[in-house]
């Protein structure tokens, strides 16, 4: 198989525990190059943890996570940093540097890794800010931004190097319909024009349907369903019916494991 035909991200036998809780139990996953792949699933199933494994922020208990031919858990710090220079990451809470204004936040990766003339830095940053509709907010501080604006600035920062892979952790939260539409277009444009592979963790099925090529449904530590968004939404399995139908009853328990309800309320006479 030629390198370009290989999946950009290949996860094999991934197993992770956090305390007593099993997060991944032998998870396998392939992310094809140049695709937009959504990872969906109930809260607390490890979607963000999966992104952390792909970027080497967390090491698994067992298994392999290959990104562009490198097994991430085995990489040393220098090799990991070299790989991360080619990966953009949009944090769930934006994680903007609060000492810097919007412009400097987006310019930060450029200033750290490329010795570019100031004019070029300025042009690149303003181009990225224009793409997310915030060129006019370049001199605002992060504390002056709304949640949705901060997310768009973080998105501009994530794409400033035109990376080979972008990981979006909840990119649609807090966006108004106009911003959501533009961000969806931007993700699609980056994918189509630059061939950037994207992995997005999201809960908004309507947005995912408009942008993703493929959806993986994560539950109980494994991928329980995968396919095109429309195909998956019409799926007949218990997993897809419960998740996309938003039903409380099904293979994914709505309630966190707990003891007997009547006992906790003291209806059986046990309460003090």
């Amino acid at each position, binding site marked *: 198989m030629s390198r370009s035909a290989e999946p950009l991200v290949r996860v094999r036998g991934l197993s992770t525990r956090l305390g007593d809780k099993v997060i991944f139990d032998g998870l396998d996953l392939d992310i094809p190059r140049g695709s937009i792949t959504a990872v969906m699933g109930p809260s607390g199933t490890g979607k963000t943890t999966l992104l952390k494994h792909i970027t080497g*922020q967390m090491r698994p208990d067992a298994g392999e996570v290959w990104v562009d031919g490198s097994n991430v858990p085995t990489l040393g710090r220098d090799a990991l940093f070299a790989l991360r*220079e080619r990966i953009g*990451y949009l944090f769930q809470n934006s*994680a*903007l540097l*609060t000492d810097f204004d919007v412009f400097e936040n987006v310019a930060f*990766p450029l200033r750290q890794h490329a010795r570019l003339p100031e004019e070029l830095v300025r042009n690149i940053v303003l181009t990225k800010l224009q793409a997310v509709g915030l060129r006019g907010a370049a001199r605002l501080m992060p504390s002056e931004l709304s949640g949705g604006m901060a997310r768009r600035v973080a998105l501009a920062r994530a794409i400033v190097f035109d990376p080979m892979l972008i990981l979006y952790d909840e990119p649609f939260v807090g966006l108004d319909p106009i911003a959501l539409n533009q961000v969806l277009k931007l993700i699609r444009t980056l994918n189509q024009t630059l061939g950037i592979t994207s992995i997005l963790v999201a809960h908004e099925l309507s947005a995912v349907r408009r942008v993703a090529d493929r959806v993986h449904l994560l539950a109980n530590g494994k991928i329980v369903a995968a396919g095109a968004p429309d195909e998956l939404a019409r799926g007949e399995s218990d997993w897809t019916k419960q998740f996309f139908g938003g039903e409380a009853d099904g293979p994914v328990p709505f309630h966190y494991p707990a003891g007997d309800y009547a006992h906790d309320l003291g209806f059986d006479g046990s309460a003090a």
Partner: protein
Amino acid sequence: MNARFLRDGYVTDALAQIGAAGLFFFTILGAVPKSLRHFRETVRQIWFVGAMSLVIIMTCGLFVGMVLALQLYHTLSIFGGTAALGTVVALSLFRELGPVVTALLFAGRAGTSITAEIGLMRATDQLAAMEMMAVDPVAYVVAPRFLAGVIAMPILACVFNALGIFGGHLVGVTWLGVDNGTFWGNMTANVEVWADVINGVWKSLAFGAVVTLIAVFQGYTTPPTSEGVAYATTRTVVFSSIVVLALDFVLTAFLM
């Protein structure tokens, strides 16, 4: 009691913390060459932890010198030795009070803000974001603050000493009537540059390194919660105060 402490893990936790702080110190030293690429950040931090601490250092230095002169004048006058007031004030400040009080004030003013700032950066994923942008947070955030603390502390101690002597002069000469020439003459004759002044500077350097190490370590390893940041900030002041006073005894024993 001892067995209970051991069983509950207090002692082993404390030893593990000391070990981790020691390893963190070497990590910072390893990151210093890389941090020189961000020298502007180091200069900014010197301004923040040094220049911004000047008001509290100068005010406290002045009053410490004034109280010192008042107390010493009273004691020395019993033995008819008020002529030695300038010497004793200067020696007390250069050898002990200058470095120690400056370090304690520095821990309260700059150490806490370093811990809170780095702790909040941890809690808001800013450090993780730097890691994801392939920027080493130890080189970019921690090392400049550490260097700034080590550089600023001796300078602040010198300022503290100068204001302390000025305060001592104000009380001793201007108020209590000690002869001006005697005050300065005895001081310059009896205070030695290497044995007294420079030894105080060595102490300040050591205190600067220890207090800033505690501050950055507490901030960097704090649990990412508001309660975690609050505890880390408190620990910075408590640990710094204990370590400064203990280290002062050790250094004094070696430098005497």
